[in-house]
């Protein structure tokens, strides 16, 4: 396989960018869900 390094680099770029996007969405979702849970608990406490 000639020019193998370019081929490998291209597919690494695909996986790296896909991972960054998926991880970024997952991390933000997780943080928001934790904040929502904390706020919902606080709201419930305040209303009681």
């Amino acid at each position, binding site marked *: *396989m*000639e*020019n*193998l390094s*370019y*081929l490998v*680099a*291209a*597919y690494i*770029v*695909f996986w790296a*960018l*896909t991972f*960054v*996007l*998926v991880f970024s*969405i*997952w991390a*933000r*979702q997780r943080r*928001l*869900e934790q*904040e*929502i849970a904390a*706020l*919902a608990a*606080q*709201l419930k406490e*305040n*209303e009681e």
Partner: protein
Amino acid sequence: MKRSGQDWWGIALAVLSGAAIVIALTMVFVYAPREATMGDVQRIFYFHVSSAWVGFLAFFVTFLAGIGYLARRERRWDIVAVSSVEIGVTFITMAIITGSLWARPAWGTYWTWEPRLTISAVQLLIYVSYVMLRAAIEGPERRARFAAVYGIVAFVTVPLSWFAIRWWRTIHPDVLTSGEGMALTSRMVQTLLFSVGAFTLLYVTLLRQRIRLEQATDVLLYLRARIRDL
């Protein structure tokens, strides 16, 4: 405001798109034959074209969502627009980088300012600006209105990019419509079509998750406002 618990459709979509990407990779490296002129480096082409396709599709969805928002003034259209732009920017970046990695052995340079590449670079900057400017605008309605108009106007870069290799003198191959620059066998075409399908599925999966993220942000803002009002 209620949010559903476990997103089973999301999980099913993620598994399906993951499997489709693995099959596409297998087709790229095992099923598709070695291209006669360029050799194995041509295998970049399948994911390069698929990435560009998803970028264009994402910007088209933003364009439609922009029209939807201006017509109905409903937050859900704005959510779709911003979610799709983020995915589009990632995939256009992917297309530009993988294209450069293909260009180095094919053209002897990573980058040249020919029409298609120049428009792609400008397009990327325009949509990165969309994300940055949007974040800087105060007021949800003003932000959504601005984003809708910007998303509609910015979409002009998609047909411009598509037709750049047909309208102007360019060294970029026009494989899809004229077959210039690369001789595709039926196995190559099948691999390309499957890759495009797998990437489209991946886009739908990511868009769904990104929309849920934006909806969670709305829930958070709603809860904060309620606590403040107590």
